[in-house]
């Protein structure tokens, strides 16, 4: 069922057969999966999708597996939620939330990429998989590796949130905590991938893994009634998701599954780790690495592998990059929870706060349709908001106590 033709270097155009290879052997640039779009166009009408299960695999012709998927079969097709109360708070006409904070099985968009990566790991014959991760990927690899019968080695920065540590160990993964930030963890993983025959999902399986991110874009289009939004706001760590959603929208137009439309891509980061938005603001895609210092640990990648292409996607679309402080991130988390009843992690707080900032700056048109990518779940970063949300002291089980404490001040007693 595969329509994958080959991998192609994004810089020099050299092509490679579909092997576990992430970078061009000549110029080191990332490799991009290329499909036989003419064949898909001729053989797969959009209507064929209607009867398929509501998971990410309904778009399987645009994913790089050779055979039937066996991993992450229930992943994807998360809700696209209209957000009228958030829109009102931000002074916007129409906002939708792509709510990957309820993705299956580990409550983040990383479930999508891992489903594809483990499928490829299986096809290539790897029995051990791994990743370098800022947390969500760790959870996703550990869970799906357990379900798929793989051994897993998960490499994370030592200061990761406790929820994400437990949410990795519980699946029986080998969790390797590394002294240093994500960029150093990733460096170690690169060396490991070069030495051991393992499927490191975001290293030697990266060309396939990252394709899974496209499904978020396919779903947004389908859930909007097969049309593209005018604006999307997407959080950026390594910068892959935003480029892959752009690729997804491009593919849908190529296949004639949506009307041609221009979508502006807005990239969101924390000011404490903003190499991509800084480059976007400078109007130059060359990335200057940073040392991350932010509560948005899932976005804390100072030397983003796809940063260069993320900036190009943003600038080429007429969008913008923006970043927000840790205090604004917490405000973003609480604003989303208070208006729409969705508890997102710090990355989602970044997205909401950046959307608010962009609207205030006049960079994001509030009269257009905007989709915010909510990529992770708030229960994984409790510490980010727990101090502000300390519960009050308990009352005695007496009506008078309740009314005195909670109603008297409001004059309702």
């Amino acid at each position, binding site marked *: *069922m*595969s329509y994958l033709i080959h991998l192609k270097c994004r*810089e020099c155009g050299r092509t490679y*057969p*579909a*092997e*576990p*290879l*992430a*970078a061009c*052997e*000549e*110029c*080191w*640039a*990332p*490799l991009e999966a290329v499909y036989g779009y003419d*064949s898909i166009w*001729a*053989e797969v009408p959009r209507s064929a999708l209607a009867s398929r299960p509501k998971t990410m695999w309904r778009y399987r012709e645009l994913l790089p597996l*050779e*055979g039937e998927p066996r991993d992450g079969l229930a992943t994807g097709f998360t809700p696209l939620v209209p957000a009228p109360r958030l829109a009102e708070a931000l002074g916007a006409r129409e906002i939708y939330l792509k709510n990957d904070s309820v993705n299956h099985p580990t409550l983040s968009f990383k479930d999508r990429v891992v489903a594809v990566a483990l499928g490829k790991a*299986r*096809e*290539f*014959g*790897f*029995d051990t998989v791994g990743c370098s991760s800022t947390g969500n990927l760790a959870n996703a690899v550990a869970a799906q590796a357990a379900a798929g019968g793989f051994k897993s080695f998960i490499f994370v920065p030592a200061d990761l949130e406790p929820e994400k540590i437990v949410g990795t160990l519980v699946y029986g993964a080998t969790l390797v905590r590394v002294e*240093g930030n994500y*960029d*150093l963890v990733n*460096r170690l*993983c*690169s*060396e490991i*991938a*070069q030495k051991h*025959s393992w499927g490191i999902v975001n*290293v*030697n399986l*990266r*060309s396939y893994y990252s394709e899974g991110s496209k499904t978020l874009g396919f779903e947004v289009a389908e859930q909007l009634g097969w049309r593209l939004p005018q604006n999307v706001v997407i959080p950026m760590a390594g910068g892959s998701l935003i480029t892959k959603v752009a690729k997804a929208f491009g593919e849908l137009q190529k296949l004639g599954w949506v009307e041609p439309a221009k979508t502006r891509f807005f990239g969101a980061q924390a000011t404490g780790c903003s190499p991509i938005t800084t480059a976007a603001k400078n109007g130059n895609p*060359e990335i*200057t*690495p940073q*040392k991350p210092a932010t509560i948005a640990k899932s976005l804390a990648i100072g*030397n983003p*592998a796809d940063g*260069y292409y993320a900036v190009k996607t943003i600038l080429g679309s007429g969008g913008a990059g923006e970043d927000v402080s840790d205090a604004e991130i917490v405000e973003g988390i609480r604003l989303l929870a208070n208006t729409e009843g969705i508890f997102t992690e710090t990355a989602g707080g970044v997205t909401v706060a950046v959307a608010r900032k962009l609207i205030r700056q006049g960079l994001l048109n509030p009269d257009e349709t905007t989709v915010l990518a909510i990529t992770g779940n708030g229960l994984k970063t409790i510490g980010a908001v727990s101090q502000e949300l300390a519960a009050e002291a308990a009352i005695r089980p007496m009506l008078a106590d309740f009314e005195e404490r909670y109603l008297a001040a409001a004059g309702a007693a």
Partner: protein
Amino acid sequence: MKIRIPPPLRKFTGGAETAEVSAENLKELFEALESQFPGIKQALSNPDGTPQRFINIYVNDEDIRFLGGAGYTFREGDEILLIPAIAGGRDVPTASVRLLYNRACLTFDFTVRQAHGPERNRRAQCPERLVEGRRQA
């Protein structure tokens, strides 16, 4: 100064994993490597001498861009590490057999597609037995 060579660059070094070079700065480093291993400079740097975008250069444990990049002066005892921004090995378990087999399936598939034109859609499948064998490997 010791420099560690990543696998993709070892085609220039005759397989050597490390090299000894003496250089004052990045520009000299590229020249010194080139004189030892002809062809390697082009893989590491742009025509203007700046480092290639997709290669990360570490001095001891620090990305050289945090140390001043091209302006950094190497010190006695510095150890240099070259790492592609996105590493990817081709190594897979018992690579030769699996890759040949996968490729054969892929090639066969294209042949079938061409032969049958648009009404194809009868994807050539690897025999299940072998697929299973691969899976359990």
